[in-house]
Every structure is written in C-alpha cells, then in structure tokens.
C-alpha cells in the first residue's frame, strides 16, 4: 500500500513543481498579497478627514479646534463658507465638518455655547465613532473652561472628583491593525489554497481522462485520495512558514506568543480536512469551471462567517449558529488564540474538537461519494 501511494505522491509533486506559474502565484499569495492587505485601514477612526468652518475666529474657537487633532482627525481644509463645506462632503474629500457659529465666543461666555458637526453617515459605524470622539473633545474643552473659571492650577486637579479610566489593551497595546490583518490574511490563504489546489488536481485527472488510468491501476480509492491531499498539506505548511516568519513576524513585527508546535499540528489536520472537502467538490464537478464556482459559493460565505471580517458580536444570532458548521470558524479562533494570545490546549480544545469532527465528516463523505461515483 505504502509503495503505491508514495509513487503517486511523487507524481503529484513533480506535476506541481513543474508548474512554475502556480508556484509563483502561491509564493505571492503567501507573501506579497499578505503584505498588501496588511497595510489596509479598517473601520477605526484614524486620520478622519475633517473640514473646519470657523465663523467665530476667536480665541475660544481656536482652542476648540486645536483639540481636534491626530491620530483621530486630519484637518484637510478650513472652509470659507457653507458651499465649500457641502462640496468637501459631497466629493468625499472630508467625512466630517465642524461648524463654529459667529457668536461662539459671546455665547460661551454667557454659558450657552454650541457648535455644529456634520458627519457623513455613509460608513455608519465609523461615522458614529468619529462623532463620539468629537463629543469627548467637547467634554475635554468643557473641563478646561471650568478649571479656567475656577482658577484651578494643575496641582489642584487631584482635588476634583473625577474618574480617570486608564485603558490598557491586552495582546495589542497600540491597537495595531496590521497585526490582525496579516494573520487573518494568512489563515484565509491557507483555507482558500488548500481547497482550490486539491480540487484542481483531481478535476484535471478527470478532464484529461487520466483518472480512468488511475482507476484501472492497483491504486485503491483511499490511496488515491491521500496521494492528492498530502502534497497540498506539505506545500501549504512550507508556504505558511514563510509567511509567518518573513511577513507576519519579520515585516510587520506581529508578536507570536503561543506554541508553534500546537499551531502546526492542528493546522495540518485543518488543511487535511479542508482539502478533502475540495476533493468532494471535485468528485461532483464535470469541469474545472464548475468546481471553481462551487468552491467559491462555499468559500466566500465561509470566509465572511468565520468571524474574521467582523467580530462575532456584530453578526445576527442565526448567522452565529450557521457559522458553527464552518471549519474555518474554529480555525480562525484557534489561530488567534494560539498565535496571538498565547493560549494553550486548555483554552482551544473545543476548536480542535470542532476541526477534528468536521474534518472526519468531510473526509469520510468524500471517500464515500467517490466510491459511489465510480460504480
């Protein structure tokens, strides 16, 4: 049994290694693509493009504006009139406008100061966050005004009843998105490539008619299956080592806190089970185009449901349940917990269990269907 399988595996490797465009693409997928994605911004308020219309031009208004600053806000322009404000918002050059009325100074002195902010609500979540930051800035300014009026020196500030919330962000102190996205992109690539590569290897045999040859050979179906999956597992393990150490850790300095041994052994099982799912699709498909489309139909929801693009908390409850049948959900959770939080088996055993159960199911199902299709 082993000799036959080894011969078949060797053939698969040779085929793959001679296909240099694919090798090149795979290298890119696990390096360049992760690098490009890592640099993207997500929905935080960062350098939020802001336009100011200061009709008051007073000390007070300047004090207020001076508080609207980086890293949250980037003042793109000082508008001269309403029309300019509208134009900045319409063209999307600014997403927030702060309008300070002409009587600001007088009304602040009279205790009824007010100003207006106009927020582009297109990207709703970011818009809410940006306005909340402005509200906070107004709070800071209020406090400044009060201490000015009371004549309090900075030393006396400890004698005003205030709660100082010292926020510490665990695992990612600077809330650096790059750390998150680079890992996310790597885990995505692992999933996508294992499915597509294995499916393509199988469909190719079908389309070229070489499957018939394999079937009349003494190779048994299970051996054929293993021979199709094992090269994918090996290639992906090697590629992910490159991206983990060169890109994720090397270029982006993402801390890797957990046990690599744990990560890689579970990853091997995961790649194995996802690949066998790719095989299952290949068994049904008549040509590569069909197989690819079917895989996309499965892959895209899987990726979006994995809790990687938006946190589980922002999914509808039915979607959180639906995600339970996606192996990727467990793998994502597992990957972040082990690599990022440094958690051990005690915390991730249920993810490992999920991957094992779903993996066994998928492998069994595809071997079973394959036998039926052959008859």
């Amino acid at each position, binding site marked *: 049994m082993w000799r036959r399988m080894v011969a078949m595996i060797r053939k698969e490797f040779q085929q793959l290694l001679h296909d240099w*465009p694919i090798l090149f693409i795979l290298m890119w997928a696990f390096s360049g693509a992760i690098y*490009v994605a890592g640099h993207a911004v997500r929905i935080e308020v960062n350098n939020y493009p802001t336009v100011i219309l200061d009709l008051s031009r007073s000390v007070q208004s300047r004090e207020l504006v001076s508080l609207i600053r980086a890293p949250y806000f980037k003042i793109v322009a000082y508008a001269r009139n309403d029309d300019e404000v509208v134009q900045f918002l319409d063209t999307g050059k600014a997403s927030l406008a702060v309008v300070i009325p002409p009587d600001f100074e007088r009304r*602040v002195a009279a205790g009824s100061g007010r100003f207006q902010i106009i927020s582009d*609500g*297109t990207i709703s979540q970011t818009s809410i966050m940006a306005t*909340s930051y402005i509200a906070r800035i107004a709070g800071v300014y209020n406090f400044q005004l009060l201490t000015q009026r009371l004549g309090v020196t900075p030393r006396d500030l400890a004698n005003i*009843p205030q709660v100082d919330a010292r926020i510490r962000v665990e695992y990612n102190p600077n809330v650096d998105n790059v750390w998150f*996205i680079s890992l996310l992109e790597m885990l995505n690539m692992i999933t996508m490539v294992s499915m597509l590569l294995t499916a393509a290897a199988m469909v190719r045999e079908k389309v070229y008619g070489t499957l018939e040859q394999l079937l009349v050979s003494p190779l048994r179906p299970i051996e054929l299956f293993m021979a199709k999956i094992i090269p994918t597992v090996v290639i992906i393990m090697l590629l992910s080592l490159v991206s983990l150490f060169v890109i994720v850790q090397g270029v982006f300095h993402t801390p890797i806190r957990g046990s690599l041994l744990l990560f890689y052994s579970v990853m091997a099982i995961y790649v194995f089970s996802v690949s066998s799912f790719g095989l299952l699709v290949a068994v049904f498909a008549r040509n590569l185009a069909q197989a*690819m489309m079917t895989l996309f*139909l499965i892959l895209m929801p899987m990726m979006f449901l994995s809790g990687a693009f938006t946190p589980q908390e922002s999914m509808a409850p039915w979607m959180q349940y639906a995600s339970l049948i996606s192996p990727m959900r467990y793998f994502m959770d597992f990957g972040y917990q082990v690599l990022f939080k440094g958690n051990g088996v005690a915390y991730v055993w249920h993810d490992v269990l999920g991957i094992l159960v779903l993996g066994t199911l998928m492998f069994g199902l595809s071997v079973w269907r394959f036998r039926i299709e052959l008859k």
Partner: protein
Amino acid sequence: MLDRSRAIIRKETRELLRDPVYLGMAFVIPVVLMLLFGYGLSMDVKHLPIAFVDHERSPHSRDYIDSFVNSDYFDFIGVLEGPAQAEHWMRSGRARVIIDIPPDFGRKLTSNKATTVGVTVDGSFPTRAGVIIAYVTIINAQTNERLLSRYVSRLGGSAQLFAPIQVNTSFWYNPTLESNNMIVPGMLVLILMLFPAILGALVVVREKESGTIFNLYASPVHRWEIILGKAVPYITVAFLDYLIIFAMSILLFQVRFTGSFWVLTSAALLYSICTIGVGLLFSIIMRTQLSAMLVTFLATMTPAFNYSGFLSPVSSMDAQGQFIAHLIPATYFMEVVRGVYLKGLGLGFFWPNLLALTTYTLVVYSLAWLFLNKRIR
C-alpha cells in the same frame, strides 16, 4: 467583419447555456452573498460582554457599574473574584472588557478626590477594541460630567460656571445610520469586481487547456474580434447580475436611493465591461485555468475589499494606501455608487470617475489585445 465576432458570441453563448450548473452559479453566488450580508451582517458592534472586578462593593462602585450595564453597548456578564479569574475570562474571550474598581473608589470621590479605574480591553480584534475604547470613554465622560456638575453646585457656584458646550450633530446622506445603507451598495461594488473578473478569467484559458484555441488561431478572425466575441456574453451576464443586485437592494433591503438610476446603470455597465476585461486579460496571459483563477482572485478580492473605501474613507489612508486605492477600478465605482445611492449627486460629480473607468477599460483591453498572440512561441 462583425459577422465573425457575432459567430464567436453565438458560440460562447451556446457554451454558457449548455452548462447550466456553471451559468446558474453565476447568478446564485451573487444572490447568496447579498442575502448573507444584507440580513446577517451589521457593522454595529453591540452587546459586548463586560465584567467587573469590584474591590469596594459600595453604592458608588455599583452606580459606576450600572452606568455601563444600562447602556445598549455592553452585556453584563458578572462581577469577578479577582485578577486570576479576570485573566482567565479575558483569555477565553468570555469577557471582552474588564473594569477594575479600586477599594477606595467611592471614598475618594466623596472626599472630592480624583480616582482611577483600570480598564482592560481584549485587543485581539482591533476594530472591536477600538469600538470598546470609544464606548468606555464616552460612558466614563458622562459619569465625570455628572460628578463635576454636582461638585460645582456644592461649591455654590452658579449654573453659568459649569454650562457645558452643546454639540449639535447631524448625519448627512444616511440620517438613520442604517448599516445596510453602507453594506449593500458596497457589496454591489465588490461582487461586480470579483465575479465578472472570475467569469472572464476562464474564457480563453479553458480553450488553451482543451486545445480548441487552435481552431481560433487557424481561422481568419482578428484578435480584437476574438476578444469582442468572448467578452460580450459575459458582459451580459455581469450586467444581469447588476440588475438583480440592484433590484434586491431596493426591493428587499430598501436601501436609501436618492440619485438617478440611469447614471448608476451606465456606470455599472462600464464597470462590468472593465472587470470582465480584467479577467480576460489574466485568461490570455495565464496558461492554466487554476493559475488564471488564482491570479484573478488575488488581484481583485483583497485589494477591492481593503482599499476601495468599503470600510473606511479613502482619504483617511496614507499615501501608499491611496496609491493602491487608485490602482483598482472598484475605488472609482464605489464613489459613484455611494454618490448615487446616498448622496443623490448628479452626473456632473462623476465625470472624473467615469473618465478613469473608461481609461482603465481601454488599457485593460489593449493589453489583452497585445498579449493575445495568434502564433505559438
């Protein structure tokens, strides 16, 4: 001359119709994606599990805890025993934020002193962490404002002394801040980027793999006739996809629509031609279906999702990000789509975008023409 293109169009169409599984997928996948995103996903991060370590257990500390618990943003999951349990809940993800209240919390406040609470946020998902930080800061600021006004009134100060400045906030373009108004038009852009490109990516390379491409090489058709003949049926499919998604966005998801249907539709047609062209180009360059597919996916999906302005405004990106953003057609179309759906802008605003898309399309098709070599090297 056009006859020859028409013959290829007819052949491609027939081939498409003969594979109902494939053709069906071309319509099913966009619909499934729209349903998933429209119904299942919102960008609102709410119900975040919050826990407390209360070292004082006084009415003051309970008041402070209540100010968080009574908000929509947080789900109260418990008061913890101590740091060891806090560490465990943070690691396992049961709590995303834990607030540690010191033993002299209320005592300090009643004796007019400042006090400090420790807030630990789970940073494993930066977006969520950012939202949590914003919520905690706001709620804490409200507490401080209450404390201040009480303090000032106890000092006997007039109301004028502490009269906070009012902020009037208005949200333009999406006054109800419905997240579907953002997601659904955004998905239209992403799906019409990824999907036509992938359809187009298989068209030529498939014939290369099966060898039928030699029929075309040997025939008197010109290169541009081949490209035209291959592109038209798929542009039709992509355009039908657009119409379906548009209808879903209005009828099913009731997205705010303030602009002109015709402006949107002509831009969508241009965009479909462009994205089919992107796929065709890769199909002509690559030699195997798998490589064409992978290249197309990598070149369209990740950049479009991250850089088109779907999740954050392009103007907030750094120089490198803005550069990448302007390399992909999705960015130009995104502005048109959001402009038409939400901002109600007219054609006058979009001509730079339409010009960019046209240029992009011309470049893509010219490259395809250049690379389509009828002679075998």
